[in-house]
């Protein structure tokens, strides 16, 4: 065994240690066993056939026969299902919704059976018929041999000399200069990620006198029409109904309360120093619809408890107390939009929000 160098690696010649308890050498299936060469040295060089490493037949022949039939049955199922797939492709028309549903069912079911049959058959084949012998292969060392390393070094040095790269600094330096701008170009392109947002996050498009429109109906709102306590609708700034960049910050919900339900005063408002006395009209209060946690639309208003719930992470705000946070991960109340009515009696913004809407950002932790 050990006198045959073909197919051996360094460190592979401790024959005694490289055998498992039952005498089988540690080796990977498919690699040539010691003593046999894939190059074919000639039958005369091999004195005798070495002992088999893997058994040619399973121990339990009747059981193997049964397994063989099961495997064949699985493969037949896959074969028939494959035929059924082809048939299904032609017989099910696809020009109606129901037709597509039938075609999908036929094609999907038959293709699933093909793969299932193949997978089950192969697995049973491996488990029941193939031998269950563990072979181990010693890891090949990563470091190249000293001869290879010396040869590589020589080739590299000769190549460097022959290319004149070292001897001719003019070529070397102009080559380096030529590649520098090209290397800098990708960094330059990062500029297109800008411009910096400047004050865009601080303000919204709400401005004094801008009307509140019912979202999607696009009609202005009067306190007289929005008159039932417990009402809640979404409103958008007039002229920005289709400007989604603006609406992402400017969407607002308005809530109509019964007299006496809005409890907070200037003194106990959750945002200290906010002037809110004349921000509401006729017990109608406007809050930003953008949750202060990560900016989901918070509009699940309960008229019994006056909770405003954000569906993303269950931040809950108390609409009667300046939308103060009473549950969940949000850290700030929903900003309140100051309102008044214009000459025609429609609800308008008194001015923009006095604080940035939506989630925190760099300059506003």
């Amino acid at each position: 065994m050990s006198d045959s160098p073909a197919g051996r690696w360094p460190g592979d010649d401790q024959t005694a240690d490289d055998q498992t308890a039952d005498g089988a050498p540690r080796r990977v299936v498919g690699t040539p066993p010691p003593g046999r060469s894939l190059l074919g040295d000639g039958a005369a060089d091999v004195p005798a056939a070495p002992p088999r490493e893997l058994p040619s037949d399973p121990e339990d022949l009747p059981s193997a026969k049964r397994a063989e039939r099961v495997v064949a049955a699985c493969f037949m199922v896959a074969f028939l299902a494959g035929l059924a797939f082809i048939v299904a492709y032609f017989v099910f028309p696809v020009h109606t919704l129901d037709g597509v549903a039938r075609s999908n069912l036929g094609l999907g079911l038959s293709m699933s059976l093909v793969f299932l049959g193949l997978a089950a058959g192969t697995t049973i084949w491996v488990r029941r018929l193939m031998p269950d012998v563990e072979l181990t292969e010693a890891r090949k060392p990563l470091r190249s041999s000293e001869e290879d390393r010396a040869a590589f070094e020589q080739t590299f040095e000769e190549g460097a000399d022959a290319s004149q790269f070292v001897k001719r600094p003019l070529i070397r330096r102009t080559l380096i200069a030529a590649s520098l701008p090209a290397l800098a170009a990708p960094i330059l392109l990062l500029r297109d990620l800008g411009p910096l947002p400047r004050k865009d996050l601080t303000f919204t498009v709400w401005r004094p006198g801008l009307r509140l429109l019912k979202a999607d109906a696009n009609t202005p709102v009067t306190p007289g029409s929005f008159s039932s306590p417990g009402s809640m609708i979404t409103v958008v700034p007039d002229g920005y109904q289709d400007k989604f960049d603006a609406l992402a910050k400017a969407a607002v919900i308005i809530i109509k309360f019964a007299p006496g339900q809005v409890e907070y005063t200037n003194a106990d408002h959750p945002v200290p120093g906010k002037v809110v006395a004349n921000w509401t009209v006729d017990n109608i209060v406007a809050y930003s619809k953008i949750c202060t946690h990560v900016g989901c639309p918070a509009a699940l208003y309960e008229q019994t408890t006056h909770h405003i719930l954000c569906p993303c992470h269950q931040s809950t705000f108390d609409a009667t107390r300046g939308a103060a946070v009473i549950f969940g991960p949000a850290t700030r109340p929903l900003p309140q939009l100051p309102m008044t009515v214009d000459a025609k009696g429609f609800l308008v913004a008194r001015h923009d929000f006095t604080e940035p809407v939506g989630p925190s950002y760099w300059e506003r932790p």
Partner: protein
Amino acid sequence: MTARRHHPAARYLVVLLGLLLVGFGYALVTGVGEASAAPGGAAQNQGQIAQGRVIFLAVCASCHGVLAQGVPGVAPSLIGVGSAAVDFQVSTGRMPSREPVEENPRKPVLLHPWQIRALAAYIASLGGGPAIPSAAQVSQSGAHVGLGEQLFVTDCAQCHNFQGAGGALTYGKYAPPLTASTPKQIYEAMLTGPEAMPVFNNTTITPQQKRDIIAYIVQTRNEPNPGGFSLGRVGPVTEGLVVFLGLLLFMVFAALWITARHGKAHE
């Protein structure tokens, strides 16, 4: 018994039982409420009001008070809620309720339609309020499903889900699924704001817009499910979760089976 517990099939059986339990539990939780129908009509006359008062005293007065004035902390006043609110609450089985709870679920209807009409007439006689809509007011003929979808997505979907499947609210309350609601009940709910639902009066959402919304709800819930099981129509998260759990369990089984030691040589 111990031998059976060590049978190779035993662990598969245990996991299979667990799966079945989860499945039945899910079916119980998402079970659809019983449909109910309450034909419309609010002809008010003194006889009907008198009948309604008798029913009120027998069924409702224990919580709402003999004068329907309400009992603080137990039940709200019914003066001015209108016949629409009565018809919605009683025809969906939410009222009469055995005890005050956070959210009254849809239940089998206890009163006959004529009893509901009489009760609604009596409550309406106490202080007016929104009336039961006529059949024409909730008809879907001429309603615009596309506009209804826009309105539903803006004003309703945040709680009721974009397909009307319902959803959770705070502290045990929830927005119910709209799968069993009749057009009249949907109209009454918008008009009166039952439970925690906001009110959408006829100047906030016009009667025509209400019919559009109803048309959208009715058409959406009648859509076929070409993809197979709808899984409650609550969106891709549920579908992904079911596929994930199902496939994961299948893979676990497959891995168990493939890698299990086999053959007599090892035992």
